[in-house]
């Protein structure tokens, strides 16, 4: 939790006008006592999305931006503290003092506003606006206060952790503001107004994240993380991806390992009264309503907030129970899995039989039913075939393939005989081509690791391995949560490199 507490402080110093929304968004899960307004709840939910395996409730991207209209007046006061705030990860009393004095000023401001409300009673419009202003300011003050207090915590904790934690902390801290700003930017882009101004602010933020003070304590991996996150990309997934992966230093998280039976169990949530099992907690809660009125209260029906909210959150990562798997904690190059859902999908894909067969083509098999459903959406519909025998679900992919490879032609269904005669011969070459290409990507990204990754090729599901994005973007594409993103998203002429190779190489294996 300590990281989170410090994040808003830093953000506030850099992006004065946008800080309100950020703070409320980032801090909310940990601060149940902040006066509730709809915006904050909204962002709380949003925040949770990245940590929870539950599908996020519908996010209303509406607001939390009212702060930017009223904060301009405080801009001047904020600026002096910005340089100091960069130092926030190392606690010092001076900083604390400056923060406190700033808070004092802030309180005076609120006082002024309240006075003015008293003096001009009766005008409903202004009153509402000013109330809102006061609420916002008070919220801000509270957050600031808590975060200032929070700066004390890491120092205590640092002493307890192993030798590496400073690196770990800075890594995460450097990373978060950037992501926060991205999120904020995403919201902003909905309302086009003042877009450019906000872009500038975000740049400020980024440079702040990589500022001199920071860099001195960053190691290479951290720098890599913060640089590799595309700033223009507002996709919320990036945030999640950034949290995961090999760059999270060992020891900075708690590793859980579920048993095989637990993973394969159909239900994970059980009714304490009747014992009925559910896949989703929400379904269980709906079920519980039938057991009596006490389960119908808002509190009982509400999504259980993180019970650890008031304590520092421990980052949990998961290990695959299959010994020898790269996702197993005993593995030399252990790469933890992020959520329970990841564990389940990974275990089923990599270590279980593929029991679901496509009803259309009768050849493709899957172990995760969602994968089957995705495949069935495309299977059999408009098979686009190359003379080399490779099939594509989309014509543009076929044409991209034909454009790239010399001598390959689109195959006309009418002369099937000729095509099949040719295909055997060409397919061999094609397969090896694909392999070489993939290995090429692999080496370039991960030269020290080549033998290792060749090993896991058989074990792993191949998604992350074959994607060229894999190492370039710090394994963002290889996450198990988004195994199919590469199939549908990319539009560039070379996109089939990721999709094509992903899709057809396993198939060749089966043939």
């Amino acid at each position: 939790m300590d990281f989170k507490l410090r994040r808003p402080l830093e953000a506030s110093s850099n992006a004065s006008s946008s800080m309100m929304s950020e703070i409320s968004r980032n801090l909310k899960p940990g601060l149940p006592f902040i006066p509730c307004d709809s915006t904050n709840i909204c962002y709380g939910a949003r925040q949770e999305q990245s940590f929870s395996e539950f599908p996020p409730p519908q996010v209303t991207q509406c607001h939390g931006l009212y702060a930017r209209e009223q904060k301009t007046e405080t801009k001047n006061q904020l600026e002096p503290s910005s340089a100091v705030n960069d130092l926030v990860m190392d606690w010092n009393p001076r900083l604390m003092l400056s923060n406190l004095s700033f808070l004092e000023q802030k309180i005076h401001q609120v006082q002024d506003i309240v006075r003015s409300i008293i003096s001009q009673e009766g005008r409903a419009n202004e009153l509402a606006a000013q109330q809102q202003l006061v609420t916002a300011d008070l919220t801000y003050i509270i957050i600031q206060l808590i975060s200032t207090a929070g700066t004390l915590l890491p120092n205590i904790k640092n002493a307890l952790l192993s030798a590496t934690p400073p690196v770990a902390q800075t890594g995460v801290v450097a990373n978060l503001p950037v992501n926060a700003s991205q999120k904020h930017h995403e919201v902003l882009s909905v309302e086009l107004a003042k877009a450019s101004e906000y872009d500038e602010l975000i740049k400020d933020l980024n440079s702040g994240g990589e500022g001199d003070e920071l860099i001195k304590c960053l190691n290479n991996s951290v720098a890599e993380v913060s640089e590799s996150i595309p700033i223009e990309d507002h996709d919320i997934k990036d945030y999640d991806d950034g949290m995961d992966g090999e760059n999270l230093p060992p020891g900075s998280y708690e590793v859980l390992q579920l048993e095989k039976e637990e993973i394969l169990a159909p239900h994970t949530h059980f009714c304490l009264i009747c014992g009925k099992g559910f896949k989703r907690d929400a379904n269980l809660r709906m079920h519980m309503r039938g057991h009596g009125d006490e389960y119908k209260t808002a509190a009982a029906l509400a999504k259980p907030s993180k019970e650890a909210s008031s304590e520092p959150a421990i980052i949990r990562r998961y290990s695959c129970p299959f010994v020898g798997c790269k996702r197993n904690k005993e593995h030399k190059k252990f790469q933890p899995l992020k959520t329970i859902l990841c564990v389940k999908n990974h275990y089923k894909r990599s270590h279980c039989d593929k029991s679901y067969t496509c009803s259309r083509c009768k050849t493709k098999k899957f172990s995760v039913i969602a994968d089957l459903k995705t495949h069935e959406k495309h299977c059999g519909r408009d098979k686009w075939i190359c003379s080399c025998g490779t099939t594509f679900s989309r014509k543009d992919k076929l044409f991209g393939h034909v454009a790239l490879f010399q001598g390959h032609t689109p195959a006309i269904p009418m002369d099937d005989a000729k095509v099949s005669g040719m295909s055997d011969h060409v397919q061999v070459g094609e397969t090896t081509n694909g392999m070489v290409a993939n290995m090429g990507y692999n080496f370039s990204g991960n030269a020290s690791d080549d033998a290792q990754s060749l090993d896991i090729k058989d074990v792993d599901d191949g998604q992350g391995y074959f994607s060229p994005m894999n190492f370039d973007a710090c394994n963002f594409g290889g996450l198990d949560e988004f195994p199919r993103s590469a199939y549908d998203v990319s539009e560039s002429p070379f996109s089939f490199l990721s999709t094509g190779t992903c899709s057809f190489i396993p198939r060749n294996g089966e043939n």
Partner: protein
Amino acid sequence: MAESGDLFRRIRGRDGFTTVALDLFSTTANPSPCSYSGSAKRLRIGDAIPAAVVAEEDRHDLVDSLSEEILFLILDRLESDPLDKKSFSLVCRSFYAAESRHRRALTPLLSDLLPAALARYPLASRLDLSLCPRITDAALASVRGALRSSLRSIDLSRSTGFSQAGIGNLAVNCAALVEINLSNATDLSDAAAAAIGRSRNLERLWLARCKMVTDMGIGCIAVGCQKLRLLCLKWCLGISDLGVGLVAVKCKRLRTLDLSFMPITKKCLPAVLQLPHLEDLALVGCLSIDDEGLISLKQECKSLQVLDMSNCQHVSHAAFSSVLNKAPGLRQMTLAYNCLVTHSLASSLQKLSKLRCIRLDGSEVTTSGLGTIANSCKSLRELSLSKCSGVTDEGLSSIVMKHKGLVKLDVTCCRNITDFSLASITSSCNSLTSLRMESCTLVSKEGLRLIGQHCHLLEELDLTDNDLDDEGLRAISGCQKLCILKIGICLKIRDEGLIHVAKSCSKLQEIDLYRSIGITDTGVMAIARGFPLLQTINLAYCTGITDDSLRSLSKCSNLYTLEIRGCPQVSSLGLAAISVGCQKLTNLDIKKCYHVNDAGILFLACFSQNLRQINLSYCSVTDVGLLALASVSCLQNMTILHLGRLTPSGLAAALLACGGLTKVKLHSSFKPLVPKPLLKHIEARGCVFQWRDKPFQVELEPSEVWKQHSQEMHVE
């Protein structure tokens, strides 16, 4: 050797050939090969023919002793008229054999002639089948068998009846094929396209209106035929961005690309513009291309010389400007039927230093736009503003004053220009060779006189529907290089004016006198005498002419198009004279020549064996005449409306007998009367029927009334 003597006598009638043949005799006495190549001395007809006839045996030996090489050199000089070669081959066996081996291009007039032609010309490399409406797979197989190694070019654009397999086999087996025209093969499938893709050496391919070909088919062609230099995909509605994009990626040697009327969008344009050698690009009527796509283009196409973006209705002038900026080497630009041509568009021409030709037909132009064109371009050679609205004297003058080198100018239907424009055109552009100004109604007869007085280099002049009078014609007689003169609907001209022109413009090949009611036999006689090279004459609705005109025209042996529609004084006698005299006659329109009957048609059928197109509506022709026409084996196109004495059975017999018909216009009242199976049979031979339901209208409208009506229609 009586036979060859007989043949030789037949040749003798042909002046052009006899000269060459005698040339040959004169030089055999002193056989030095080089003398053939230069302008060899030529004996006059008068002294040589008797010598040849007398020494028939000697001549025979001489002819046989000529080497093939020499005969080839002679044949090289006989390209101008196809009949010359025919005559040459009839001289003797060795000439026949030499001609068979010399000829490279075959254009069979009938499908039935194809086997014989293939047998006779084993080395033909170009096969034009555009006159053969029906080409079966068997015919293609025989082509494949006969010309397997030599065939380089084949034109099937007007033919039907062959299947995918037929064309596929041809493409695969004739390895030397460089050029295929498959336009209008609307049922050509992807499989056939894939087969075409296997002829690796293909350089030029036309697939216009091959609507069944999809991206897959063109993809196969793109991958297979990487030597393509010319590709026409006009109206290929099945091909999208993907196919065109692949063509652009694979066929890097493309020079000419026609993407007109295709459903392509901006997505394929970057790849197309990156073709390193692209010179000629046509994007006519690509309605899916819009401003956004063009403005966002980043690629620059330095090699592009000719660009045609007519009829792109969703493209504004801003986008055109951005495209023009991408093609600095442009020489010719066509933006017809588009948008407003404004100052901003015109100013983007400034960077195009090589621009020589601008065509803005049917656009809306402004005076300032024309002024900017005048100032932006370096030196224009060709300008077409036909049917443009907004062309003013000021705008046009600013251009012609600046670009004195203008060679071709088209201001058809620019109805606002006056004598002022004409004065500036004639005073500055003295090198004009082509001036078209149909329906420039504000120009006075005095203005028109300026043309003849100043533009002496004119070769083509179109003054249709103007205020031209005999004085104007007298001035035009100063243009001695004139080849084409169109003075239809100039109601003021009389015989006197024509006599002036006929005296001086001896090179005239085409004259249009449509509705020149003042013309009589005297004028036509002057034409026939004055224009020995005349090929095309339109005398439609010249009600004053009689059989005498036709008799005098029969002296024009090159005549191949004759229109005497609505000349009621013409009878079968005149037609007979034409038939005998003008044996090259190809197109004949005798609609509403009420006195032409079977007698005239019988002559026609007997002598005009080259006739391809005829309009017989309203004539007094019966079954007999129509059936006689069947003996004209080349006949392709007939219009037979309102033939009062024609019976259904006579029509059926005639249709059956004319084997080469491709298009027949008939009155719809005949449709139920002719047996359906017969119609189907004829359609299967490659003929298209057009059923018309026009009312019967005997009386001719006087030309003054007609003009009045047409002007009223225009005002509306």
